[in-house]
């Protein structure tokens, strides 16, 4: 491991409250100066059901899960078989198990972790109004060395509204838990001391970050239909959009939400909606209209397990195909993907800018792992770009909404402007917008709609490229698993295995010249993605000339790809013989 961190899983079913405890732990660690990450593994139940808070804390910035958990605190073992595979352990792992919950399931003992029994429930019972999750919280905080004062303060703030009695009871449980941490001493490496904050720190989830990026980019209208795991984007936007002078409408379905956004955007107001796979499927007809009528719009797809209803609460990167290719007809549009939780702000903001500038739909592929995880990170330096739409000025003459311009972008008139009225149309049309079945008009408009996307300079933001310029190996990836790849590459470098990182933020349109430059000198390529059919690999094959030797590492959700697996795949690629595989 290239830096010091502690990974902790807290599991518990029903109203055990492990999410609350996990959240407080991250908050406290953050206040005390650590960086951190908290993901969630949830069952299908609305209330209760299995759940796990998946934390990683570190003195260095961290946005990737680690290979294994150092500490697993089981408030109970309910339904553990359903998600045990999401909790990789190793021989150094410490399991805290409450004897009243029965023996540690065999499944969890395969890697021979150390088991320490702590009667969490009994301890909770021993304090009046005691809560087992607070006991667990105290135990963990003490074990890894979070200052008591900080965790107490967080607890008091979070439970503030519940009144002094509840706070006092919870504090008592917390303290009881802290005292119970003693047997752990020596078994668990405490966190390395926090680094002084050189910069402001933020605590933010990917879905909140996406909402913020949208507002920063200029979005002032949103039509919303809830769907897991995208709902929080919409819920964050609802009050905040209003606060900055915008509007959110709850729609009757996704057909309505996308088309409402087109209406808002036609009115000149940058518009966005967020959804997940099933909703995106319902939106593709509307997105096609956005392409043909050249109406800017952003759709954030927070990906979950598919196909169909699939696994709504768990992450996957399997909507790449539909995002890039899912519109009928020749329908060029833009597809982006944020590379981390923090990058959700940048990518959402950039997506709005691109939609407005290119007058086309942008699909941003976030995912559950980024969207519903919280990170404590340095306040990101954020770009200034925001919505700029080329507008037509009031005119007397013959306004051509779909004029054939050199760069393909035509000035767009906004209702209210005199002299430039026109009818936006999804039928093929002349430059003026008059419906046309003529071959020439069709060709011209198809050319124009493609040109405005392919001949635009997206700048370096199309991908994040790092690593040695003389590397002959590269890893190419997209989306939130970039963080795992980053960590894997750092670790591999420590063992002398150097590879370049190409993390693609712009998935469509293709950037052939940029890719040639990015692949300069690369003879071996590893494609890393989280889905079953290696969709990214097939996209890359279709659009780019790849090096002679290409390996892929792909797996569907919900098992996160772990850094060590990427290191292993890279090692195998380094060993592989180009001639055999070519």
């Amino acid at each position, binding site marked *: 491991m290239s830096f010091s961190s502690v990974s902790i899983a807290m599991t518990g079913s029903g109203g055990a409250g492990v999410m609350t405890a996990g959240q407080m732990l991250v908050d406290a660690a*953050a206040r005390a100066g650590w960086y951190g990450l908290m993901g969630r593994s949830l069952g299908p139940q609305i209330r209760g059901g299995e759940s796990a808070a998946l934390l990683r804390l570190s003195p260095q910035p961290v946005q990737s899960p680690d290979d294994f958990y150092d500490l697993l605190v089981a408030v109970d073992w309910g339904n553990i078989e359903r998600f045990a595979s999401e909790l990789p352990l190793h021989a150094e792992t410490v399991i805290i198990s409450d004897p009243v919950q029965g023996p540690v399931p065999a499944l969890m003992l395969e890697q021979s972790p150390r088991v320490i029994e702590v009667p969490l429930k009994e301890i909770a019972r021993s304090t009046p109004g005691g809560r087992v999750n607070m006991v667990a919280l105290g135990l963990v905080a003490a074990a890894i060395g979070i200052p008591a004062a900080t965790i107490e303060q967080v607890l008091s703030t979070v439970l503030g509204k519940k009144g002094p009695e509840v706070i006092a009871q919870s504090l008592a449980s917390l303290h009881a838990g802290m005292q119970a941490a003693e047997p752990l001493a020596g078994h668990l490496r405490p966190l390395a001391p926090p680094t002084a904050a050189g910069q*402001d*720190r*933020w*605590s*933010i989830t990917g879905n*909140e970050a996406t909402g*913020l990026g949208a*507002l*920063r980019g200029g979005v*002032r*209208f949103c*039509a919303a239909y809830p769907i897991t795991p995208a709902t929080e984007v919409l819920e964050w936007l609802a009050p*905040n*959009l*209003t*606060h*900055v*002078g915008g*509007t*959110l*409408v709850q*729609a*009757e*379905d996704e*057909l*309505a939400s996308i*088309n*409402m*956004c*087109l*209406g*808002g955007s*036609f*009115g*000149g*107001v940058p*518009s966005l909606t967020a959804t997940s796979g099933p909703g995106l499927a319902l939106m593709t*007809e*509307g997105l*096609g*209209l956005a392409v043909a*009528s050249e109406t800017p719009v952003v759709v954030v797809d927070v990906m979950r397990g598919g196909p169909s209803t699939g696994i709504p609460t768990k992450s996957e990167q399997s909507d790449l195909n539909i995002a890039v290719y899912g519109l009928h007809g020749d329908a060029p549009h833009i597809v982006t993907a944020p590379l981390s939780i923090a990058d959700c702000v940048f990518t959402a903001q950039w997506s709005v800018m691109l939609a407005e500038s290119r007058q086309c739909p942008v699909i941003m592929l976030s995912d559950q792992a980024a969207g519903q995880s919280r990170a*404590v990170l340095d*306040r990101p330096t954020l770009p200034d770009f925001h919505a700029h739409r080329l507008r037509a000025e009031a005119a007397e003459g013959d306004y051509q909404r779909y004029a054939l311009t050199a760069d393909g972008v035509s000035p767009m*008139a906004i*209702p*209210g*402007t*005199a002299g*430039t*009225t*026109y*009818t*936006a*149309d*999804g*039928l093929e049309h002349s430059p003026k917008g*008059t*419906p046309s079945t003529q071959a020439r008009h069709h060709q011209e408009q198809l050319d124009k709609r493609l040109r405005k996307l392919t001949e635009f300079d997206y700048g370096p933001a199309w991908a994040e490229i790092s690593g040695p310029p003389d590397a002959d190996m590269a890893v190419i990836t997209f989306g939130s698993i970039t963080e795992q790849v980053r960590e894997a590459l750092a670790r591999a470098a420590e063992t002398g295995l150097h590879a370049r990182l190409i993390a693609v933020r712009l998935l469509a349109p293709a950037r052939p010249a940029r890719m040639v430059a990015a692949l300069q000198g690369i003879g071996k390529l590893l494609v890393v993605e989280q889905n079953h059919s290696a969709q990214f690999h097939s996209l890359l094959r279709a659009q780019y000339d790849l090096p002679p030797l290409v390996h892929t590492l792909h797996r569907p959700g919900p098992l996160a790809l772990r850094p060590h697996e990427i290191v292993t795949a890279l090692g195998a690629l380094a060993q592989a013989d180009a001639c055999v595989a070519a």
Partner: protein
Amino acid sequence: MNTIPCDVTAEPTYSANDYKSQIKPVWCPGCGDYSVLSALTKALSELQLPPEQVALVSGIGCSSRLPAYTSLYGFHSIHGRALPVATGLKAARPDLTVLVAGGDGDGFSIGGNHFLHACRRNIDMTYIVMDNAVYGMTKGQASPTTAPDWTGSKLTPEGTGIEAIHPLEIALSAGANFIARTFAGQPNHVAQMICEGICAPGFSLIQVLSPCVTFRPEQRGYKEQVHQDWSTPVTDRKEAFLRLLDDDGFATGVLYRGNHRPFHPAPDDTLSIADLEKRFAL
């Protein structure tokens, strides 16, 4: 909110023709939709609305071709989705006068859900449905307002066997605030209904019986069937229901003029983005 000058007295600036475009309609000769176009432009000139302040949204169908034939801001969208497009537009741009136009297939078949929810949401807009009880554009299939025994469609050669929908009843149930019926053969009445619809707050539905001379030539007979029975609107839902329970589908006039609260999203504009960002800071 836009304030429509519903009692115009000043010297008129815009004639009906100022609301027309140069584009020749694709409609069949004799199609009822021509009259609706004329009536609309007449209504707009009566209200003296500046063309650039009015947006006309439609779906797909013969009737949905309307926007391009006007000089308004138009959005000829996709089949069945005119109402959501218009809803987004009005919510984002409450200063505009928003009109929606389309057919019975577009509005009550594929667009039925948006129709329900637009009535319910009661946003201030006026929806003109050119009802010809047929899918004209796709060459003559039954629509939701087609009688069950109409055998003119190859898709349902024995008739649909299902009852026609009652769009005004649905609108009344769902919460539309202004509901009227008129007939394309009486363009002045159509114009009047459109004027009243635009001036009424909230969601206004105007069903225009608009003959499809090509696939429903018998609809030329509508002119003998219509009767202006609803010359005074009622404001009570119960009375309106009673009217509809007696309806033969050919009564014209304002059925109902309600008092439902229109939906107003209200931005408060109190914070800056920097303020919002601060909330993420530790």
